[in-house]
């Protein structure tokens, strides 16, 4: 077996091995048990005191969501103002300009929603002030928001019957002080020691060996990159993200960053098992997700290491795979693995350009984001998966003629309706958005806009369609990666993308938390011989079927028009 493949397999195995103890630790933190990080206690008490928070006061699901939404709204206002004035504010050594209102609208939604879609380029579109006081800040807080909402789900199922889901503030703060901050510090130090810049020095200009003048962007990147990976944010300090040598200096950092992309999301699955004392349930969930994950990895590694058939036809040697949009130090297998990891987890950072992936690899990363629950974003991934569980419980309940229930609570019409709406929302946003954009492109290509629709696409034909489909898919999944050839810093994409990200973030959080609130409040029914067990392999297979049916039915047509058509045309001649 070749070294590139071995590298990928070891990376994945190490991730799982690390996720188990981390999951146990997370369960302990939120159960209030003693951990190694208890030295954070005084800091947390200090924060509670000056913020006027009573950490003991448990909230019902409505109070919990209100607290979460209020602070998120505040960040939106704060960030928008900062961005449209960033050029006039301090800490701008490279003299970068203000963001336009539509770009700022997109950017702030993008970071509040944990998406980190970047219609600007980090080197020229942001200042040190916004990189640190906005992006890095929101990378912590948006990730902590997701984790807090998942812990609410844990709390809802921990007691037999309860209307309390925990204190939002306290869970939110602990997610940062005990999880995201310590992990990010470790990663940032590893990166700094491998050459990622961490100082505040501005752009440098040098004369190269050959005698050319070269500009080199620098800045406090290490810290931001660490939290971007740990919090499934994905927004890079530099434009080309983790493909840039400063963001990802060598194969070792590449492995570490790949682990970081997956680590917290997988650890949270184990945490669920430990917290609810239902390890088997956690294994079934992990098994279903990993089934898809490995399938997708095999597909992408196969196509990327095999190379581009169009280039084979030119008669040159393509021994190390399809290297357009890839870096030598990572190789094609690792870039393929990263592409699946980053789209599984709603991370969205890249170490190679997705626009240049082979058609079916590009299709699979889109499918990965359409499902958006294979590990998923920190916290929100499991919330999304919970929706699939509810639907699977409902369908299998109907099939065997029993009242559907989950963990001792009856699942009734109201919960299933919420789950159905959340599922349908994704399909509506992705396909509706793409259809609208395609319509405008075809019928109003030369509309009198600042950026004409005819200039949107970087590639013609099926691939151009894929660029638009990818953009809405990424926005809807709060992923943030892109087929970056798309001219997305234009009013249409800034505004429509912003709206999609916003709806696709908060409705799929509100929905599951509401379902948990409703279920937890119901009378607990002890397990009996007649209970449909959700921690069985059979139920796992059932969930796989539901995921396949829901996504295949919804997304097969657009995937045929884009990636599948491109793949077939590539092999047709």
């Amino acid at each position: 077996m070749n070294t590139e493949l071995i590298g990928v397999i070891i990376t994945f195995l190490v991730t799982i091995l690390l996720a188990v103890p981390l999951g146990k630790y997370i369960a302990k933190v939120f159960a209030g048990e003693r951990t190694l990080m208890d030295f954070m206690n005084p800091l947390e008490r200090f924060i509670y005191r000056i913020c006027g928070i009573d950490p003991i006061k448990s909230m019902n699901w409505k109070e919990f969501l209100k607290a979460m939404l209020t602070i998120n709204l505040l960040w939106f206002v704060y960030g928008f103002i900062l961005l449209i004035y960033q050029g006039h504010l301090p800490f701008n050594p490279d003299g970068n300009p203000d963001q336009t209102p539509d770009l700022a609208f997109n950017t702030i939604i993008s970071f509040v929603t944990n998406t980190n879609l970047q219609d600007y380029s980090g080197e020229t579109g942001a200042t040190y002030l916004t990189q640190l006081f906005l992006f890095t800040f929101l990378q912590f807080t948006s990730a902590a928001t997701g984790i807090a909402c998942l812990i609410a789900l844990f709390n809802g199922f921990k007691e037999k019957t309860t209307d309390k889901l925990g204190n939002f503030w306290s869970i939110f703060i602990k997610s940062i002080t005990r999880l995201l901050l310590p992990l990010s510090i470790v990663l940032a130090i590893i990166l700094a020691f491998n050459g990622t810049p961490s100082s505040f020095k501005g752009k440098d200009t040098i004369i190269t060996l050959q005698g050319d003048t070269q500009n080199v962007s620098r800045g406090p990147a290490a810290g931001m990159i660490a939290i971007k990976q740990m919090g499934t944010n994905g927004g890079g300090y530099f434009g080309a993200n983790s493909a840039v040598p400063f963001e990802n200096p060598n194969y070792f950092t590449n492995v570490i960053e790949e682990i970081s992309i997956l680590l917290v999301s997988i650890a949270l699955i184990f945490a669920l098992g430990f917290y609810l004392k239902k390890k088997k349930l956690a294994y079934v969930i992990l098994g279903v997700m990993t089934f898809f994950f490995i399938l997708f990895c095999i597909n992408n590694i196969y196509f990327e290491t095999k190379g581009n058939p169009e280039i084979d036809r030119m008669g040159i040697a393509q021994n190390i795979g399809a290297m357009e949009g890839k870096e030598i130090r990572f190789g094609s297998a690792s870039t393929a693995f990263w592409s699946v990891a980053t789209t599984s987890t709603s991370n969205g950072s890249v170490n190679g350009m997705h626009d240049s992936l082979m058609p079916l690899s590009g299709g699979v990363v889109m499918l990965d984001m359409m499902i958006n629950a294979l590990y998923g974003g920190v916290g929100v991934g499991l919330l999304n998966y919970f929706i699939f569980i509810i639907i699977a419980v409902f369908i299998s309940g109907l099939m065997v003629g029993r009242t559907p229930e989950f963990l001792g609570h009856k699942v009734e019409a109201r919960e299933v309706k919420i789950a159905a709406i959340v599922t349908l929302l994704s399909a509506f946003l992705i396909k509706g958005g793409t259809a609208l954009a395609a319509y405008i492109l075809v019928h109003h290509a030369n509309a009198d806009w600042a950026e004409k629709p005819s200039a949107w696409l970087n590639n013609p034909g099926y691939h151009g369609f894929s660029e638009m489909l990818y953009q809405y898919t990424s926005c809807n999944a709060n992923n943030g990666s892109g087929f970056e050839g798309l001219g997305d810093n234009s009013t249409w994409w800034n505004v429509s993308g912003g709206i999609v990200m916003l709806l696709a973030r908060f409705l799929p959080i509100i929905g599951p938390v509401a379902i948990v609130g409703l279920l937890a409040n119901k009378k607990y029914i002890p397990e009996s011989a007649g209970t449909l067990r959700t921690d069985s392999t059979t139920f796992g297979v059932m969930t796989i079927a539901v995921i396949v049916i829901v996504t295949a039915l919804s997304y097969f047509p657009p995937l045929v028009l884009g990636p599948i058509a491109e793949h077939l045309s590539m092999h047709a001649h």
Partner: protein
Amino acid sequence: MKQYILPSLKLTLVLLVLCSIIYPLFVAAVGKLTPGGGGDGETVKVNGKVVGYALIGQNFTNDKYFWSRPSAIGYNAAGSAGSNKGPTNPDYLKQVQNRIDTFLVHNPGINKKEIPAELVTASASGEDPDLSPAAAKVQVKRIAAIRHLHENKLNSLVDEHTDGPLLGFMGPSKVNVLKLNIALDELK
């Protein structure tokens, strides 16, 4: 709603101090301790003069040097980017064909099927500092002729500058182009 606004406001301020001031300053302080650049990015010097950043690739188009991979940004590291060309884009394929033709003109005696694809395709960052060993060796003939050096000597120079897989078994092999070219200049 009011009972949530005040804690939101205060918590935001507190977390700004923690995540946006203390955290990056701490990382910057640790960065100062790192060998090489002290957090500013490590530079490479020849005779005391900075000729580049160790991690950032640079343009080599002169025939007497090992060429770097094509870059969508011409190695201007003020704004990293890939080409974002799709695999079936006809303009892109024409561009690759042109690069192959150019390479053949500059490298007489090389057969088309010896050209590694990575040498005619653009990297993801536009700043790729490396070549695959094959992409370096295919250029040996040209450089040996221009510099009047023995091909064997250049091949072993490439071997010396090849970094193998991580720990010997993980990931690809690579050659840093800048370091290779500096060593090339120093060859007598």
